[in-house]
């Protein structure tokens, strides 16, 4: 069984996994960080999105062993104490959620989108959200929230 170590939300973590253990299983079942969701489990919905070495990735499609040595950031690591990350705050202000299941993945993806494109147009945001599915179909407010957060993150 591979022994792995990685940094998750700034903390060193370690564990024993099977070769087939997915990164999302390690995050949820081994570390107890259940903010990262498993939605479709077929790499289409983006609910499991985390950041690995600074890039948004689908943690249901990466082996935990592959992430050995990586820096991983999950939804739990975004807020600074009681102060939400500007993307989380924008989602709250713009009511960018209905049932909330897709929200952690949406927020992690959205931060990736704005990191790559600090001033995205509405069209660019809609295209860049290709990999995240909201089955409540609440996209409109999500797009507005990302646009607002982009301005806040630039400021």
């Amino acid at each position, binding site marked *: 069984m591979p022994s792995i170590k990685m940094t998750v939300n700034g903390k060193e973590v370690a564990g024993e996994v099977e070769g*087939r253990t997915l990164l999302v299983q390690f995050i949820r079942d081994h570390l107890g960080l259940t903010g990262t969701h498993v939605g479709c489990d077929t790499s289409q919905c983006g609910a499991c999105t985390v950041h690995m070495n600074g890039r948004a990735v689908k943690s249901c499609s990466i082996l935990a062993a592959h992430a050995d040595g990586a820096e991983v950031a999950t939804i739990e690591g975004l807020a600074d104490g009681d102060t939400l990350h500007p993307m989380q705050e924008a989602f709250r202000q713009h009511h960018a959620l209905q049932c909330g299941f897709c929200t952690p993945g949406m927020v992690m993806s959205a931060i990736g989108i704005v990191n790559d494109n600090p001033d995205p147009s509405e069209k660019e945001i809609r295209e860049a959200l290709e990999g995240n599915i909201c089955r409540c179909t609440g996209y409109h407010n999500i797009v507005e929230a990302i646009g607002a957060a982009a301005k806040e993150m630039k400021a």
Partner: protein
Amino acid sequence: MYDFEYQRATSVDDATTKYGGAEDARFLAGGMTLIPVLKQRLDQPSDVVDLGDLDDMRGISEEGGAIVVKAMTTHHDVNTSDLVNSKIPALAALAGTIGDQMVRNRGTIGGSLANNDPAASYPCAVLALNATIKTDKRDIAADDFFTGMFDTALDEGELILAVSFPIPEEAGYKHFPNPASRFPIVGSFVAKGADGVRVAITGAGPCAFRQTEFEAAFAGGLNPDAIKDIKVSDDGLNTDIHASAEYRAHLINVMTRRAIGG
């Protein structure tokens, strides 16, 4: 997913040695196809040899009139490379249409080519640009590489190291995306280079192929009108719930004209 022996390669030699020493191994590049395939139990390798640590298999350079993209370079890195955007902008744009943000951050050109999905985007660029696939054993010409659905000229355990794309005078790519998956239902890549005009199609058949009747029609220049009256045969093209062979044949002409601004 069935369990397997996970092995992490420390060099290209180590990767091929580990592969050769296993009963039935698979190389793991970005994993954007392999991991979903394993999760669906469509494959059951004894070993997975992870190439993730091989940093010397990543990067893009210009060498003697060609852009060389190493095999573990991600779609995101090709899409955002200044070099690719300045020398072969159609290739950079194509990379930006693959999957989504998260897939482009992980998926690699080598993995895409080795897998040879019938609807993969890169194969038509490789064919139209007359690229050379460089492996740990030899150089393979694009025309010899794609041999069938999910099938390539690669031998068992042969590893793609890089792809060398001759810089064209002009090139363009256009695809008609599946409305749900965004995979090309049909994609067309047109390139005018030292070898004349080459046109390659993805998504329409078992694997990417050249549309030679268009190439001949473009001998006088890349004018969309030169092919508008050519009716493409639907013989051997794919039919599925998304599009019939006849519709794909129609799209081959339309996407090719749009690839060159028509």
